[in-house]
């Protein structure tokens, strides 16, 4: 972790207060109250229907909570800090009809970035060639996920919310992506990763957040220095 990040690592970057989300009569989130500090990589795990993706979407501001509140980077209104948040959804959130650079250029523009070099750097960071002319509709699933990650990081967000970034990605690509996330966290960013492939994240995770039935049922901190082997163990389950 960088010195700057270490100095501010005790500040809560996400504060959830009595968070409830109903879909009709079904409660997807049941009164979650918790806080998460800066500069850590949190891996949110749990069975299907545990409320992981719903929690991420509520935090990202894509869903209004039925009750309770979310404080992000000190702001109650997520739009006030939208510039500082990166979101990667379950779907790739990319235009199939455009190529990689065209996609990134458009999304960079939404964040006020007009510099092509930023888009090129984001593509290179995830291991994609910026010169690739192929349209995203012709990309493999792994390439789409990488480009989706590039889209989420291109404006250098302080907080990243990633929903199933490794879905349908081969083990090799998924390990690469996990390593990239580790490096991004080392730059002082806070990252939330919702995944069913927890073993992939073990070498880089700071904390596992366990969810069940719409609640956080446990938090398990990892001592990364103890995992000094640095080898990306495990694989996709």
């Amino acid at each position: 972790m960088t010195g700057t990040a270490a100095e501010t690592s005790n500040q809560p970057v996400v504060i959830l207060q009595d968070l409830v989300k109903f879909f009709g009569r079904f409660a997807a989130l049941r009164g979650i109250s918790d806080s998460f500090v800066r500069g850590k990589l949190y891996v949110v795990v749990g069975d299907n229907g545990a409320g992981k993706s719903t929690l991420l979407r509520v935090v990202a501001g894509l869903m209004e909570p039925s009750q309770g509140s979310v404080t992000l980077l000190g702001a109650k209104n997520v739009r006030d800090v939208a510039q500082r948040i990166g979101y990667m959804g379950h779907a790739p959130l990319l235009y199939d009809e455009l190529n990689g650079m065209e996609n990134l250029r458009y999304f960079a523009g939404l964040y006020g970035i007009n510099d092509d070099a930023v888009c090129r750097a984001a593509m290179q960071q995830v291991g994609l060639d910026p010169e690739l002319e192929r349209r995203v509709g012709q990309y493999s699933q792994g390439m789409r996920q990488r480009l989706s990650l590039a889209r989420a990081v291109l404006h250098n967000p302080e907080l990243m919310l990633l929903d199933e970034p490794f879905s349908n990605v081969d083990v090799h690509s998924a390990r690469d992506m996990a390593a990239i996330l580790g490096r991004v966290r080392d730059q002082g960013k806070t990252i939330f990763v919702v995944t069913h492939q927890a073993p992939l994240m073990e070498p880089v995770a700071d904390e596992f957040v366990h969810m069940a039935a719409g609640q956080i049922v446990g938090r398990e901190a990892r001592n990364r220095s103890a995992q000094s082997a640095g080898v990306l163990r495990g694989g996709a389950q």
Partner: protein
Amino acid sequence: MSGLNVTTRTLMKDLRMEWRSKDAINSMLFFSLLVVVIFSFAFNPNAEESRHIAGGLVWVAFLFAAVVALNQTWARELRNQVLDAYRVSPAPPNALFLAKVLGNFLFVVILEALMAPLFVVFYQLRSVGPVWQLVVVALLGTWALVVNGTFFAALSIRTRNREIMLPLILFPISIPALLAMVDATTMILTGDGTPDFWLKMLLVYDVVFTLVCLLLFESVLNAE
């Protein structure tokens, strides 16, 4: 974050995607062509009759054709849930709406420019009134159709039968504009009276509905 910059970028992106796929423009052209040909054969009007029915015929054809494009406006944003990427960004929602309206306006105006000569030929149309007034009616009328159409297409994107929902909502609310467009067009073609009242009504309709749609679009975009 400049809203104008986002609008321009979104518009250019949509134009590039339409240029590559030609989904909207091809569907609209094909549909309008069918209407022109079928109605021409069905009624076989002479020049005088044409002047009286053309106003209604032209605008009904363009309205139905516009719905084809309007339905596709948001379809691209729903594929891969790209709309979520916009919603989490700091870009102003109105910039997206304005870009979509301008894009649709451009598509429908191109369609009208391409179809106008065909209408003239098939219906032996000769305008008695000034042609520039027809251009004003076309621009004001097209804006009225696309501003409401784009808004209601956004409103219906989360419904199951959105292709059916859009005309069901759009047509009734467009009746005042359609009435103004048809009457103004007929007056200009036949030279019976002056279309000033209908042009003013169209202008007021455009201003009011553009403002209302801009005010409400953020709620529509973020609706669950």
